[in-house]
């Protein structure tokens, strides 16, 4: 359904006037660097990474909310780079985004029911009455029943979890095929998160959706996703089915991530590999393998050549010269 090839997104670094005079070349933020992956209909792919990994940018590139610097995105047979203007606007009904911050992604001056109905109205679906009917049904479907209690409320009158449901309703009322969820539960209370996730899974079955989950929360990704792609500093370093990636990780960075998760079990013994240092700046990523300065298994070749994503075990790929098999 979705095929991404060699996607790149570089942002030019804004330089001050003096820097422009003195510096010789422009520098770029390598937000997304040669990312390739594909998704089939019905997949739930987790795009996992820390801040600066480029996962959010990748998600938005897939929805063409941002223009890629280079690379190709083919969605359901359509080359997204060929779409623009009115055509693109109409095409958007097929792919939607669930936002991270339920408060900031709803206009504080628009009533919740109206906000959902706007999705239908922007795409010219049905008459106003039909739109209202569908919105009401959608409100109930996401658990905000009875709809009459919620349709005319403002976002600030709802709890965080309820607001997130509104965001989900708004994204799904158009019956899109593909949904990118950007940290959908990060800003929701812990005790309510599972509820939102369950809702998203139910809706997936009902509407036959394909999800791209963007998150830094590995435990959540483990719970919800079927396949995982790990990103580091703009590159995908490992992909594979969830069980493979989380139980038999190949890339040292994946191993590091897994060891770093706080486990709510004081007796759990984890093999810990916590690397030193922090994520380097994406403006000047390290030469060769981007993880090599922090990798305890790095060897000379790692600083010279960049490893490509290769299939090391069936369906399990990693970009590393010395994968932990």
């Amino acid at each position: 359904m979705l095929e991404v090839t060699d996607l790149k997104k570089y942002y030019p670094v804004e330089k001050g006037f003096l820097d422009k005079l003195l510096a010789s070349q422009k520098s770029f933020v390598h937000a997304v660097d040669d990312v390739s992956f594909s998704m089939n209909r019905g997949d739930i792919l987790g795009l996992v990474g820390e801040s600066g990994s480029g996962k959010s940018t990748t998600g938005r590139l897939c929805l063409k909310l941002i223009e890629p610097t280079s690379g190709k995105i083919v969605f359901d047979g359509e080359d997204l780079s060929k779409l623009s203007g009115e055509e693109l606007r109409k095409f958007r009904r097929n792919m939607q985004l669930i936002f991270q911050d339920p408060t900031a992604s709803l206009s504080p001056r628009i009533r919740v029911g109206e906000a959902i109905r706007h999705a239908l109205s922007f795409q010219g679906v049905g008459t106003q009455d039909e739109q209202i009917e569908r919105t009401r049904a959608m409100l109930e479907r996401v658990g905000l029943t009875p709809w009459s209690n919620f349709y005319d409320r403002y976002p600030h009158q709802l709890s965080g979890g309820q607001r997130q449901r509104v965001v989900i309703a708004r994204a799904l009322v158009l019956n899109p095929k593909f949904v990118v969820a950007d940290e959908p539960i990060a800003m929701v209370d812990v005790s309510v998160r599972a509820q939102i996730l369950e809702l998203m899974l139910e809706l997936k079955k009902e509407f036959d959706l394909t999800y791209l989950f963007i998150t830094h929360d590995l435990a959540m990704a483990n719970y919800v996703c079927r396949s995982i792609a790990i990103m580091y500093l703009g590159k995908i370093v490992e992909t594979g089915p969830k069980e493979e990636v989380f139980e038999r990780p190949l890339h040292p960075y994946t191993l590091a991530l897994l060891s770093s998760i706080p486990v709510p079990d004081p007796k759990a013994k984890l093999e810990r590999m916590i690397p030193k240092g922090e994520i380097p700046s994406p403006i000047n990523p390290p030469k060769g393998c981007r993880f090599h300065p922090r990798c305890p298994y790095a060897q000379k070749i790692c600083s010279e050549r960049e490893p490509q994503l290769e299939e090391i075990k069936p369906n399990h790929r990693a970009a590393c010269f010395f994968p932990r098999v």
Partner: protein
Amino acid sequence: MEYHTLKAVVKAVDRVCLSVEKGETLGLVGESGCGKSTLGLSTIRLVSPPGRIVSGIVTLDGTDVVNCSEDEIRRVRGKRVGYIFQDPMTSLNPVKNIGAHFVEMIHTHEPDVGREDALKRARDVLERLGILPERIRDFPHQFSGGMRQRVMIGLALALDPDLLIADEPTTSLDVIVEAQIIELLRHLKESLRLTLVLITHNIGIVAETADRVAVMYAGRLAELAETDGLFERPMHPYTQALLNSVPNITKKGQVLSWIPGAPPNLAEPPPGCLFHPRCPYAFDRCRKEEPQLLKHNGTEVACHLYDKR
């Protein structure tokens, strides 16, 4: 302590009784709005109006913190209690370099310490925290998030306090950096025999670092137990539900549950036990009477299920 707002008196923290032993790490856990940060701030009287401490006693090794004078409380802050704030971005002064931060901190409490001595101490602390001592001349914006948090910890430790309170020290940090900071805290705990109160909503961190855990809900203490005991045999229904709603990557085939409803509006709290509207075991008494924190099998729980009186 209570917050007096224009609308009503909101009891942000109510009847919380806690004690921390020397050398122990206490984890203070709860979701947003449960009052844990307020509790932390009130131990050194840093709660800003309209909040105020209405009643209660906070004693630090015998000193009454609530009723002592402004001078005395200032001496307590920093010197005897170190506080690590949540957001290292906004807690550091962007126009002062790190060294200046330390000097200011040290001078406030030990004015006779010379500048050079203060800087030396700062360098020692930073080195122990994994920051190159030369960086003492750098400014906050030159540090990454994790480094800044280390600087904050360093500032809190600079005066060799008796007690360290860390308020959500890793919330704004990435997973790996978070693990580094937690490692650091654990290491310091052992090498300095630190007494630490760790305030967080992340149960996982608490499982790894705390000796004892206090679970708060809606301003009240729900449960207080040794860490191992709390995770193996959670007593309070809220604790149970909370543990069931946190994904554990080491557990295969875990089924997550959640708590229906939402935390109560503290301006109009429900009668009886504050958790009863969401509690699967609520019975008659829960709706009328607020439970007391009672000892039961080595833990302290505030729940009628364990109150056989």
